[in-house]
């Protein structure tokens, strides 16, 4: 009985519908957060002392993070990148749910670009955590949803052999995904991030 439920869940997790729905929902969350942060960036540009809704105390403060140099690393608010990239992910997810299959080179390009996005998201997370010393709820949502989009994209690209990996690596990667070890890895990763945030900020959050 329990085994039946487990194997059905595992089957579901490997299905297109699950993967692309996860991707779609995560990308929508990312887009929402990017939009809010973009609007906040404009408000802050007009008035650096503006009271943002998510400035809750000295530590939970989008304003502190938003006013840092890291928040506009390329000379414009980072959140604009989310406004540019996430609609593409949403399109891929929706089209795939509708049955479209993209060429391998296309999916590989998406993987490369999104991997850069993931690296950037975590660079920002570590800057906020260790250097800026403030928490920004919308930024954390982006960290989470970027991780989930990356996970689903990687899952599908390994499964469908879109990454032009050498034979052995490809076989190992597929075995890894088939054993659901990717899900385990991401769960551990996110738990680790949550533990980092909570242990540092518990007295403020709870």
């Amino acid at each position: 009985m329990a085994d039946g439920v487990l194997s059905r869940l595992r089957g579901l997790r490997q299905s297109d519908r699950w993967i692309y729905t996860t991707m779609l929902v995560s990308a929508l969350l990312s887009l929402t957060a990017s939009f809010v942060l973009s609007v906040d960036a404009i408000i802050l540009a007009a008035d650096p002392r503006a009271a943002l809704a998510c400035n809750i105390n000295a530590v939970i403060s989008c304003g502190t993070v938003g006013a840092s140099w890291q928040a506009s690393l390329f000379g414009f608010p980072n959140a604009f990148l989310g406004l540019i990239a996430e609609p593409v992910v949403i399109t891929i997810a929706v089209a795939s749910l509708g049955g479209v299959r993209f060429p391998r080179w296309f999916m590989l390009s998406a993987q490369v670009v999104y991997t850069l996005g993931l690296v950037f998201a975590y660079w920002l997370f570590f800057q906020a955590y260790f250097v800026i010393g403030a928490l920004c709820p919308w930024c954390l949502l982006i960290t989470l949803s970027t991780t989930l989009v990356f996970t689903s994209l990687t899952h599908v690209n390994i499964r469908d052999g879109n990454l032009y990996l050498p034979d052995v690596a490809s076989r190992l990667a597929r075995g890894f995904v088939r054993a659901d070890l990717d899900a385990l890895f991401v769960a551990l990763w996110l738990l680790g991030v949550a533990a980092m945030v909570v242990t540092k900020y518990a007295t403020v959050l709870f």
Partner: protein
Amino acid sequence: MSKDNSRNIPSTGREALRQRQQAAATADRRVSIAIRSAWIAGLAVAALLIGVTTWSIVGARSGNTANVVAADGLVTPASASDSGAIVIGKPEAKVTVTVFLDFMCPYCGQFERANGGALAAAINDGTAKLEVHPMAFLDDASSGSKYSTRAANAFVTVANNNPDTALAFSQLLFAQQPAENTAGLTDATLADLAAQAGAPTDVVAAFSKQAYQPWIAKITKQAFDSGITGTPTVRINGQAFTGDLYTTGPLAEAIKAAANG
């Protein structure tokens, strides 16, 4: 794989097939053992991470891991004694100096100016420990801002989470003591002073939770019920100190006498 099916294969071929099958089975078994081990290890790490996270949430909810939270939500600071005092200094110190104070009370400020240095020295060299009863009965003397309670809450939060900076924080609070019947120091100033004393950001940020207000009200009443009639009231090893509280010297001598006696 029944024997009947393999009977037609020549014996050397049959042997080779059997070996291949065995090798494949061994490889499969190895892979599934590896996967199973990865899952077990992963779940163990997950349990650990969840444990660490939960633990720090539980700890933070009460301000400190060992705080006592009663059914009615009263948070008693972990570092408080039963009599409602915050203890600063080495527990094994021979002399116990007990002070009932209110951070708004001008005479407490005078007492601190006269004796703060000597008290700090006695605490630092291990001769004495200080029991502070941070009372709040002058809330009405701060134009509605409840300065006594806010200052006491800030002090208790620092003492509970970062005891080493509590004495410095208390000294700063008296150095910047507001006059009675003014609004007192703002929350921002309290936070600045605590940071100046060396309290970490997360401790300072916890002031705004005002977690210890109910406890402060309780120990204030408890102090009056036990016969305290005003602040500062000072005791040395439980005996009322009757010397001059407002000039430098007598208290230090009394501490020295108690240490030698």
